[in-house]
């Protein structure tokens, strides 16, 4: 038995990747849940909004790199992030002006909004491919590791190594800051309160003098920021490919629904639930078990529940279970 090595192996292959992935999903799901709560529709264009914001950030990052601006050990993309958010917000507000407002004034049914967002998704999808192309783009620079496997082994003398990438550190830190800021904004500021009021009861909010167009605009701005941050963090940590962002839609929606649509706290819990389930169910536990269990109990096989090919299936199954037994999600959001 060697619990220390077991824990290190577990952290290296399960805990750290899952926490980073969970943070990225949580930020994505927060955007989806805000739109659902305040604008009352499922925004299928969210994955491609992330891709667009990330693309804008990448282009600006390249510009910065060309003129020699860098953030030292941190990725240059962090400096470019605010500009990326601005570009993304510009596109989203334009879309709202040109598309969503038309249906809003008609008081269209939510299902029509969903279909409209599907159309917006395809257009954004094409736009991103047209501008940056369908291929992989890597834009991470600066120090790659906070601690690399080799350093960790030299430092601790353990048999198992542990890698903690800079991008993973930045992801978790940024997620914490963004979530804290968002909750402060929603619970403490006047605009945040008016957003929640509008979400709870639209007519009552209008009667008490809340300007709906302003609430909608602020929501879109926050969504643009969340989407761009989530996209850039994902791209930094893994790599940027438009199709992958489109596919991310599934785990993001699963996270939002599992947590309870419309509930920001639920989105975060959902993001981590999905991420941990995906990673833990497809992980081969042989190594960890060999360290943690006495020799007689150590497994011969891989001790892997599902092959990694079924990663996306895990999100689907969790989604189904939640919808069957608790349709409002863990945190009692709106029923779907």
């Amino acid at each position, binding site marked *: 038995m060697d619990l220390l090595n077991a824990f290190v192996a577990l952290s290296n*292959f*399960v805990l750290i990747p899952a926490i980073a992935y969970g943070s990225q999903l949580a930020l994505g799901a927060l955007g989806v849940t805000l739109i659902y709560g305040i604008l009352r529709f499922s925004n299928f264009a969210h994955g491609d909004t992330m891709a667009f914001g990330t693309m804008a950030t990448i282009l600006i990052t390249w510009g910065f790199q060309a003129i020699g601006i860098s953030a030292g050990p941190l990725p240059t993309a962090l400096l470019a992030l605010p500009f990326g958010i601005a570009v993304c917000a510009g596109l989203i507000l334009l879309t709202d002006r040109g598309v969503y407002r038309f249906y809003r004034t008609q008081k269209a049914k939510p299902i029509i909004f969903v279909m409209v967002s599907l159309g917006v998704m395809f257009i954004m999808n094409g736009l991103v491919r047209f501008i940056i192309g369908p291929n992989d783009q890597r834009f991470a620079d600066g120090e790659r590791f906070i601690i690399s496997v080799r350093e960790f082994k030299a430092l601790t003398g353990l048999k198992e190594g*542990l*890698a903690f990438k800079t991008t993973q550190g930045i992801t978790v830190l940024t997620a914490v800051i963004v979530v804290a800021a968002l909750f402060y904004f929603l619970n403490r500021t006047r605009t945040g309160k008016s957003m929640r009021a509008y979400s709870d009861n639209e007519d009552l909010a209008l009667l008490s003098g809340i300007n709906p167009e302003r609430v909608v605009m602020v929501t879109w701005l926050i969504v643009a920021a969340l989407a761009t941050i989530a996209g850039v963090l994902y791209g930094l940590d893994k*790599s940027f*490919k438009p199709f992958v962002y489109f596919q991310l839609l599934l785990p993001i929606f699963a996270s939002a629904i599992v947590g309870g649509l419309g509930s920001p706290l639920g989105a975060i819990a959902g993001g981590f639930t999905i991420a941990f389930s995906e990673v833990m169910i497809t992980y*081969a536990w*042989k190594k960890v078990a060999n360290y943690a269990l006495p020799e007689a109990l150590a497994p011969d096989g891989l001790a892997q529940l599902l092959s*990694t090919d079924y*990663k996306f299936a895990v999100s689907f199954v969790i989604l189904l279970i939640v919808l069957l037994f608790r349709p409002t999600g863990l945190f009692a959001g709106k029923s779907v």
Partner: protein
Amino acid sequence: MKHLLMATAATALMAGAAVAGGHAKEVKIGVILGFTGPIESLTPSMADGAELAMKEVTDSGLLLDSATVTSVRADSTCVDAGAATAAAERLVTSDKVDAIMGADCSGVTGAILNNVAVANGVVMISPSATSPGLSHNDNEDNGLFFRTAPSDARQGVVMTEVLMEEGIKEVAVTYTNNDYGKGLADSFQAAFEAAGGTVTINAAHEDGKADYSAEVGALASAGGDRLVVAGYVDQGGSGIVRAALDSGAFDTFHFPDGMIGAKLQENFGDEIEGSTGQHPGTDSEGAAMFTEMVGDAFDATSPFTPESYDAAALIMLAMQAANSKDSNDFKDHVMDVANAPGEQIFPGQLAKALQIIKDGGDIDYVGATAVELIGPGESAGNYRQIVVEGGEITTAKYR
């Protein structure tokens, strides 16, 4: 008298037309390779290699009464069987090519062979399709398909020999989830286990993902002295290696042909120090002559480039031997010109070969890759064993 004159003239004209029909001045060869897709970094020099042979033959003016050989390129995409079939269909029906040099990846090659080449009776010589599934031992291909690359069943055996000589008895295997990857991984596993080694895990990975940490987690858990990556360097293969290095799961790797390219060196450099690999290649004097002949025009040592030159050369030599550019005529001559007996032919000597055949002699085409066609028309296979030293891919030896 007038009638006789007319008749003579008409006969002469018709005879002329008939001769022109049989010995058209133009031979068209389709070059269908994945100019886009997972091996797009390899294909440009492959096409250049094939076209170099065509130019050599055209310049000699000896093929079928000084025919000119032109190349028609098409994109096989390497992975999309539908697109590849459509592109090949275009080559055969609209461009009217006389033979096809290609395709590259095993899946699309099989699709083109079954849907287009066999249906239209066109000879195909692939420089790089290595799936064991393409060995048509029962003549399902009507004798139309050949390859200057060896079957992966052979590569599996060579890979086993390399690893055993390095003293490695336990490996983890990951393969790209398609005909090439699966065929290679399975033939390697069979050969490796037969030689007394252990394959701890044989798991697929999908190309085009952003994140391979889950896949690498499973591979790391299974363990092994080395990770065998039967994938593509422009695709998931590099992603797997990156994730394995980042998480410290494996330090050294073994790379089959799809992973060996300039990109590998560029992506990882000395991070994969000590890793081994092999890809089809030879140290026969033909290879050196080919490299010298190419000069700086393109990268002559890039994988499958010499094979492409040989594939195109074999097509044209077989045409000369059959004295016809019709696939059904010359398909039976491919094996004859490729193998002994006869005078050995090296790269740059195509003119000499054409002359020998024209004079009724026999040739044994050696070419850039020491071509020796066996079984149903596939290369016996020579491999270049590589090792990563000082961040560069270097040749360990040839086998």
